[in-house]
């Protein structure tokens, strides 16, 4: 197996539209959650979300934009950033190896939970609400789950594997893990891997609301409505955005002088097969252990954990128990960060965004805080780095947890660039 370097990162998110901007907001505790300004907001119990400040018209030609759901717009912009960041984009630097690179050796691996749900929702509105038969001709193209990955491949002429993973909230962690496997095994030399999600349609938000997983609005501080690991947590807040990473065979990344931002060391994947929504201590713990095994690391190597930490009653208690099950007495000494308090739950893009934040945190020797944690919960008694980042902490190796409805648990092992 080959070592796999992360050489580029791109982000569109409620915390800003670059990896660095998102990291700084996560570090400084600036929330991307707030009331949403949309006509259907008055029909939502909790009219809050984490929205990205993003206008596709600023990024795409009008003709092309007509074919792109917001989820694909996010994905392409984040992938372009990541490639530019990897200094691998022919438009950025024509004398890099990118121009000569065999693009059949480059794969695209994208996670999305809900695909082009905005376009589908718009089509349903035409048919069912407006009673019109004039559903737009591009509805299928915009709505299909593999559109974000396909557009990334089209944009850069990448003819290697182009795959879409939909495992709900672990989709992008799975996409990164599967990309890692293929780069490590030599099936591809480079991968663009990550996730994209644009779930803030009326239909989708009402469906999430009906499932009773969404947070109530914190009347005093709407931006603080998502409170992972806090006793008074009431649920998750939906978020939108994309995060893409360029993964590359370590030796060729070094040979071409790429700036290495970190290393993907391992990937653990398990399935609960217990309940469609209820998380499982055993399944989550098994995924963390499997990730460490695949990285060839023992428990003592883990310096910090990026939690799945959604802010739901069930997830946070179960994840705490799972971390304890894996790490035993040492669990209390490992800082555990839940950044969803700030960027909300990006569903199929969450794992990739959290990997980007974790890699940058390690680069800057920062442990990211878990915001809005003011009431300790006896069931959640780990070190969650409450409310304030820690600086000058030499964190070298992290786990990033992503757990999903459907029971797909994916854990990635990340190492800082040295």
């Amino acid at each position, binding site marked *: 197996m080959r070592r796999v370097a992360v050489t580029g990162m791109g982000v569109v998110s409620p915390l800003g539209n670059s990896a660095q901007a998102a990291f700084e907001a996560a570090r400084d505790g600036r929330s991307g959650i707030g009331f949403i300004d949309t006509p259907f907001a008055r029909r939502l119990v909790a009219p809050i979300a984490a929205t990205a400040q993003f206008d596709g018209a600023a990024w795409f030609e*009008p*003709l092309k934009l007509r074919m792109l759901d917001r989820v694909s717009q996010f994905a392409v912009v984040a992938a372009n950033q990541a490639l530019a960041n990897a200094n691998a984009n022919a438009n950025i630097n024509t004398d890099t190896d990118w121009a000569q690179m065999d693009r059949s050796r480059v794969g695209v691996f994208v996670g999305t939970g809900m695909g082009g749900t905005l376009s589908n929702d718009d089509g349903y509105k035409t048919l069912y609400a407006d009673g019109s038969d*004039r559903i*737009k*001709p*591009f509805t299928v193209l915009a709505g299909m789950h593999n559109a974000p990955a396909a557009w990334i491949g089209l944009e850069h002429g990448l003819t290697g594997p182009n795959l879409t993973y939909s495992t709900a909230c672990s989709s992008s962690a799975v996409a990164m893990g599967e990309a890692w496997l293929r780069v490590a095994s030599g099936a591809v030399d480079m991968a663009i891997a990550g996730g994209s999600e644009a779930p803030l349609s009326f239909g989708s938000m009402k469906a999430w609301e009906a499932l009773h997983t969404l947070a109530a609005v914190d009347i005093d501080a709407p931006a603080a409505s998502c409170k992972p690991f806090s006793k008074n947590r009431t649920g998750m807040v939906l978020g939108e955005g994309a995060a893409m990473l360029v993964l590359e065979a370590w030796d060729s990344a070094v040979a071409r002088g790429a700036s290495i931002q970190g290393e993907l060391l391992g990937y653990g994947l398990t399935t609960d097969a217990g309940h469609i929504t209820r998380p499982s201590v055993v399944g989550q713990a098994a995924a963390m252990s499997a990730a460490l095994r695949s990285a060839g690391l023992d428990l003592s190597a883990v310096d910090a954990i990026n939690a799945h930490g959604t802010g739901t009653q069930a997830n946070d208690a179960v994840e705490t128990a799972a971390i304890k099950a894996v790490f035993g007495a040492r669990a209390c000494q490992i800082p555990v960060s839940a950044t969803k308090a700030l960027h909300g739950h990006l569903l199929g893009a969450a794992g990739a965004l959290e990997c980007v934040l974790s890699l940058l945190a390690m680069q800057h020797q920062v442990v990211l805080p878990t915001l809005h944690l003011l009431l300790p919960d006896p069931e959640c008694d780990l070190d969650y780095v409450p409310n304030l980042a820690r600086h000058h902490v030499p964190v070298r190796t992290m786990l990033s947890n992503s757990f999903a409805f459907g029971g797909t648990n994916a854990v990635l092992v990340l190492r800082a660039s040295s």
Partner: protein
Amino acid sequence: MTTTFERLRAILIKDYKFTPDLLVLEAPLEELGIDSLGTAELLFNIEDEFGVTLPPDAVQLTTLGDVVGFIDDLIVTQRKNQVQTDPVADFALPAV
């Protein structure tokens, strides 16, 4: 009276953000970036503007002028059909 071409140009400028100078009758659709899929979408969008219904089968259109001709033909045909479906007019016309 506004011509079909002028109305088509107005849509292409407003909704598709085209530079007006590019929109001449001879302009090939492909050169404007409108491929066969894009043409199908464009035709969908002009149905309302011109009050016509597209035929189910695909059409081959190469230039903006072809689109104008296609719309004009549709308008004429569908107006005639409306007349045909009128029971009195139907009676007066020879059976085909």
